[in-house]
């Protein structure tokens, strides 16, 4: 018995040593989005290079980066963050700078810098998707169909609870849009104290009916449960719940707020070389197009959009479900990253104080 114990412990020790193959840690948003990245980027990458990819979930990968780099204990190699977070973290020196020359060109030879959509490449980040915050609803729980963003704040026409992301970003803009501010003026109004007050006043009209969500997977769950009748959500998660899982959820594209997500590398990442390899691999034309067949987020490269076809079920056309489809862009707002880089801290502080009262 004793001998068996010793031998098995020794074996376990050896296997522990042997298991240190090359690997990288990638932090993303979890749920259906991470699944699409695993299928489109992770598995092909491991198949081609043999480097194992560990996927870590977070409600917002930007916050662990700052904490880890400041504490001097970085465990993430690649993180998927929102645009304004990528710029802000880069400004503060928390991210590695990325040499755009290492990104592969498009199949027709266009260099990467011209193939990516305008704004998709920053000093420290490479965009992978275009996504958007939209209002979604469960058509079985609603009498009638909402047509504009103002309907989200209309408790008489559509009684019931509302779901909102527990963050000032996208929430304040939607409040202003619903209050009648045209999309082109939203950020101008929001830069003034009166504008901020106006946004909070509009939110006050529905405050006691709001259920606050933090994880991207919560809105489809809340809508399916009937806990809320309308909710803001990441559009791809609603698409997955509606098409892949058959839930009766619909998206209201009016007033959608578009944004990029970028891959970044925290400063001091333990496997920087492999992380750069992953970045170059995951953002090439074919991978971005593949990822669009798993979830309805637009690829950040122009050459990928022609390769976007059907959902992996083989039946649904992805085109109309993309945030960038022309019929969905009628009253869309593109997130102003410069505004949020500067005002993120103070607006979120005011938001939290407002929440707690």
């Amino acid at each position, binding site marked *: 018995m004793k001998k068996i114990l010793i031998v098995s412990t020794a074996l376990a020790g050896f296997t522990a040593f042997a298991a240190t193959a090359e690997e990288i840690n990638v932090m993303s948003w979890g749920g259906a989005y991470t699944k699409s990245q695993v299928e489109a980027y992770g598995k092909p990458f491991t198949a081609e290079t043999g480097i194992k990819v560990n996927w870590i979930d977070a409600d917002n990968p930007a916050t662990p980066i*700052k*904490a880890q780099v400041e504490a001097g204990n970085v465990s993430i190699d690649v993180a998927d963050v929102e645009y304004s977070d990528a710029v802000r973290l880069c400004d*503060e*020196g928390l991210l590695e700078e990325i040499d755009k020359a290492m990104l592969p060109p498009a199949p027709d030879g266009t260099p990467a810098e011209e193939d990516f959509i305008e704004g998709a490449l920053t000093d420290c980040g490479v965009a992978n998707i275009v996504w958007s915050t939209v209002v979604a609803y469960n058509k079985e729980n609603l009498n009638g169909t909402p047509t504009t963003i103002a309907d989200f704040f209309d408790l008489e026409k559509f009684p019931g*609870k509302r779901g909102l992301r527990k963050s000032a970003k996208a929430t304040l803009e939607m409040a202003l849009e619903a209050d009648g501010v045209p999309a082109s003026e939203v950020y101008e109004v929001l830069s003034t104290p009166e504008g901020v007050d106006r946004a909070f006043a509009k939110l006050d009209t529905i405050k006691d009916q*709001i259920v606050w969500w933090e994880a991207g997977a919560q809105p489809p769950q809340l809508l399916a*449960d009937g*806990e809320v009748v309308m909710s803001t959500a990441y559009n791809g998660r609603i698409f997955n719940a509606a098409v892949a899982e058959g839930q009766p959820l619909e998206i209201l594209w009016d007033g959608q707020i578009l944004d990029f997500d970028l891959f970044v590398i925290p400063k001091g990442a333990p496997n920087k070389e492999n992380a750069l390899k992953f970045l170059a691999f995951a953002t090439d034309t074919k991978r971005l197009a593949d990822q669009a067949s798993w979830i309805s987020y637009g690829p950040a490269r122009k050459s990928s959009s022609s390769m976007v076809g059907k959902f992996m079920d083989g039946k649904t056309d992805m085109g109309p479900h993309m945030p960038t489809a022309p019929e969905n862009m009628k009253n869309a707002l593109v997130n102003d990253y410069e505004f949020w880089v500067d005002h993120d801290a103070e607006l979120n*502080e005011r938001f939290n104080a407002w929440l*707690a009262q």
Partner: protein
Amino acid sequence: MSTQTPADPHVAVVATAGGVEDGPLVMADGTSLKQALRKSQSRARRRAFLLVLPLLAFVVLTFIVPIGQLLKRSVYSPNFHENMPALVAWFDASPPGTVPDESAYAALVADLRLLKKTKKAGLVGTRVNYELPGSRSLFTKGARKAEKLEPPYREALLKLDPRWGDPALWQVMRSAASPYTMNFYLAAVDLKRDSDGSIVRVEENRRVYLMLFGRTLALSLLITFLALVLAYPIAHLLATLPLRKSNLLMILVLLPFWTSLLVRTTSWMVLLQSQGVINDALVALGIIGDDGRIQMMYNKIGTVIAMTHILLPFMVLPLYSVMRTINPSYVRAARNLGATSWTAFRRIYFPQTVPGIGAGALLVFILAVGYYITPALVGGSDGTLISNLIAFHIQKSLNWSLAAALAALLLAGILVLYWLYDRLVGIDNLKLG
């Protein structure tokens, strides 16, 4: 005449018939009994201390030192001091209240240029932003444009953004120039420094912390009381049943302990949701209408219910242990002497359980005050406690100094309450079994 062998100094020389010795007892070698006892006791004490030393070292290293370092952050915030050398020097050279002149602005521009090189504009701006919201954008913009500024710097900066001339900003920068500050403690109680340095309350729409401290205290007391009311009968039943049955029931009390906390909380969500089990049952029975569903989730009610359930075992166990030791014949004797069952309970049984109540209540209260997972999941915005905001400042806004100040205040509050409890009830009056 007989004595023990004098070679054993631990034996006192005992007076026997025929050899009485008067005065204090002494050992065979002449040292007094008191001293010898103290020496042997000190050996035992030293041995006991050495046995506990590893545990003490472990607690100090892994508990007290890290917490102390974090609490130090509540008064120590060096970001401004370390990254703005020229301006700090100007502040040192001029007394408080000096209106900033051209040399001050020149120092500021020099530091902004330095910030662009070191990429610390965000850090410094955030530090100032803690006390004057809106300043972060001022610093990041200033650092971006600093290279292009020409003297006279005062006009150039004011033209870039008039807020650079705000005396409130200069006041905040002056206080931020020193790495040690009490301003985070002020912020933790909804106060702030005005532009002339006096302490005022913050604007109405930013006052959250005192209200949250009050809410945390009130809800924790409520939860402790509810847990006591629910746990008392359970503990009494467990204590009076024969051992085999009570052991079986005890497993039912302990079973939740072996389930994950998140699982327990999410099952409460399933029960309490407006489309959840309880509401559906009430609607099916016709007690409430479909649109009159009771809101038990995402508010204080959800927090109280879920936390009472989760903390219940902590109240049951100490009560049970104490009740086990109560002799049932006391109550029988009281009944015999003519007391009604209520009087017998009130005057005989209940006072004997007070030590268990004290232990359980203390345990549940201190746990309730620090809980943050359950209020975060089921409390919504109405049922959040101060611990949620401490967690927010640690994880999301990364304002560790404010989080440390809030935590230090919470710790101080608990210690004050503990001292009060000691005065009123007495710590010796506390038994765990």
